[in-house]
């Protein structure tokens, strides 16, 4: 399986991680229209190529990590400090 770059633990087998999803900003819950909110809930870019994702290093440091990954080639880059 892929090796994912954990900024805290080093490169680790993807089996240690949980995939959370594409990084999507949560709209203002008090201002969002249904269409806007449901885009946040359901629509995804799902590109064949580089994508920004959120992963959880479940069997490691327990941190949520921002990772850029190429969904075709499997290359991965950690984008430190951006999990928030």
């Amino acid at each position, binding site marked *: *399986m*892929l090796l994912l770059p954990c900024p805290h633990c080093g490169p680790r087998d993807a089996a240690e991680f*949980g995939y959370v999803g594409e990084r999507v900003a949560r709209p203002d819950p*008090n201002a969002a229209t249904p269409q806007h*909110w449901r885009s*946040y809930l359901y629509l995804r870019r799902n590109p064949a190529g580089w994508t920004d994702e959120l992963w*959880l290093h479940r069997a490691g440091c327990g941190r*949520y990590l921002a990772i850029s990954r190429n969904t075709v080639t*499997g290359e991965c880059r950690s984008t430190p400090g951006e*999990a928030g």
Partner: protein
Amino acid sequence: MMRLEPQPGEVIDRGRPLTFTWNGRTYPAYAGDTIASALAAAGERVFSRSLKYHRPRGLLTADAHDPGCILQVGDEPNVPGAARRVSDGMAVAAQGAWPSLRFDVKALNRLAGPVLSTGFYYKTFIRPRRLWPLYERVLRRFSPGGRVPAAPPDGRYEHRYVHPDVLVTGGGPAGMAAALAAADLGARVLLIDDQPELGGHLRWGGPDDLAALTELRGAVAEAGNIEVLADSVVTGRYEGGLVAAVQRLHGSGSLTERLVKARPAQLIVAPGLIERPYVVAGNDLPGVMLSTAVRRLIKLYAVKPGDRAVVFTANDDGLAAAADLERAGVDVRRIVDAREGGGIIRVRGRGGVRAVECADGRVVRCDLFVTAVGWTAPTALVTMAGGRAAYQAGAARFVPAELPEGVLVTGGLAGDGTLDELVAHGRATGQDAALRATGASGGGAPISSLEPAAHPQLFAGRTDGVVDFAEDVSSKDLKAAVAEGYDSIELVKRYTTATMGATQGKLEAVNAIAVVAAATGRSIAETGTTTARPPYIPISLGALAGRNYQPVRRSPMHDWHVEHGAAPLVAGQWIRPDHYGDPAAEVRNVRQHVGIVDVTPLGKFELRGPDVPDLLELLYVNRWRKLAVGQVRYGAMCTDDGVVLDDGVSGRLGEQRYLLTATSSGATGIGEWIERWLQTEHPDWRVHMIPMTDAYASINVAGPRSRELMERLVSGIDMSNEAFPYMRVRLGTVAGVPDCVVWRIGFTGELSYELHVPSGHGLTVWQALLSTGADLGVRPFGVEAQRILRLEKGHLIVGQDTDGLTQGFSAGLDWAIKMDKDDFIGKPELAWQRVRDSHLMLVGLQPVDRRTVPPEGCQIVEDGGRIVGRVTSSRFSPTLERAIGLGFVAPHLSEPGTVVTVVLPDGGRVPAKITPQLAHVDPEGTRLRV
């Protein structure tokens, strides 16, 4: 007997004779013999029947890829008999032939040959439809393969992780040289070879080859940092550079196979070359063999492969094989050299080779036809790893054209050369790999070039013969497929099943491509290859699975439950006590006296910090900011689509200390959920979360006499109703165990206390409760009684009384959802749900007939059959002595008193009445507050 005098490089140990059985008859063998070599030595020539036409099949390649020698060995099906060594007492049998290998009734298929043309089953058995199952049964009778045993077979399997810098697969001269060179530079090397001993083709070479072999083997044995895995095959290189090999173990107890996994910095692929069969009429008769097959038989196993031979060659290896045959006493009647214009029309015979018809018209009688028409470079590992193979017409083979990062090739896969050239290339490759692996530099010494040697493109003769021996697919079948419009190699492959059998294209793919290319008028390069997929060789389920580690979680009181006759309930990873014999009695005991239940799997999380109230306000749909120290509250969580995620009670233990509980099944996920919101949305909040699920043993003490019982065991807490009322939490000592959390809640609907005890003391407290409360009638109760009690009380279970689309207002959480909070997860969707007001509603249900309990999952219908709801929970209530339930109904049916129709599994329909509230017992909640 076909056994020869001792040969210089033979691998059999004549000092260790063995016996084994073949189709019930006992045969001799020597240690080191393969099943096939021992049988061949005894004069056997037929080992199997072909898949479709049940033609007799003998040895073709005499190695692991031999398609004619797939056998049943004891309880193991589909064993490659030309690779598996004989062990004493082994029971070997032919597969698929009936009644016997010699006389196989299914060979009658041959008569129907013209009709059973490729894809015939797509064209017939179409009408009448009802007869297809019958035809299918007949077809299945002709399916190939061995038998799986009825009981789990002998054998044990395990996984091993290794950490070499350089992994070399293939222990021929180039592979050994590569390993040695890498090791010389300090790299840790793993050298993997599929044979019992290293050497590759040197093992069946001449005296010079054997001398070089001895030297190389000695050097490998002396090298400190080379580990050799013999009898092992690399099955694939996967993403992330992961390499797996399956190692067959002999004589190590019951351990059968080991899956070895590594992520080497560099992988050197050195598998050598695979000799290709020749496609011509009669090429699958027993007695047709590859040049490497006869050389293996003679040199390694001292078996004479036949008496009179014709050799058809397009290279010098064929000539070397002819020389070996002569030395072994085989009468080589004719050598037909394609380079000199020679050719073969067909091989004649029935049940075995009788004669060979040459292109010049001569017919030569013989019992052995040996071909040496070219090589296939096994590029599969390279292409699986992301590399590319390209056809080199001059060398008549596909070669690695692009290597993926971290993969190098040497030996025959890279090119051809003398022994010295192979070794030199191996050494340079090994050095390069070691330097790359240890990061010494971008690359090592320049690698001397090893070019594939020129070779005639010789794939098929003028007559049609078998292309895929495992699948019984002929060149005629391939041409017919092309003529029918299946004109790309992938379509031909799928239509004819060529390359889809046991050999997975290793022997036959290039011949198939050549035949398809000729039939379509395209070149081989244009036709291209099919995709190689892992595993490189078939790998057992046992080896893949390894030892079975399925984690199980048990509470500290688990053994007590077992000793006291608890029926186990598998709930996710937890094994829980379902009941101790009579759940209804357990329910009554709780309602009348007091019971205790082990609720350790309950998810528990300690939250600390000044911003915990902000977190709780966000997580839960209800309000938390005013929760005072010592208070507990029920809370429900939704996801951002408004769907109910989890629920539980949480309490404030101190100024900045909270304990949050989640459902048992949701525990792990809720911990991650909380962390996610903290880490990604609100990293500024000062909150620490500590998972406590396993740190506390949890016991619920429930029943009218629970306070009396608790008072006897608790110190430091005033247990009176005034001092410790409903929905409060206290910290104190229970049964002498300090630091316990005690909260007063009521999942069961009774006066009850939930204890969270440091888990090491769980059993102590459990036993103390039972012994101290014997006179109060305390009894343990299990999960089933707890479920009945909660259903009587109308408490929902998330995931049972809700599903993946159940939003908050459907779950009867109206009272809890606070839309005036600034934010909470799921708020917008819940706002819209309330406006829409068309959702299913969770209601209490009571079947009009008090004895009829509709099983959970039964549907609620109207107008004859339209589904308008379902029963989510149902039980017979021992307290009310009637059937009770919870369920979803459409909004127009949710008014209390409405009678709805429930469909039973047998189709019967029963009326059930909607109750005023979810609770069936004590809806006012007085029993909780006493």
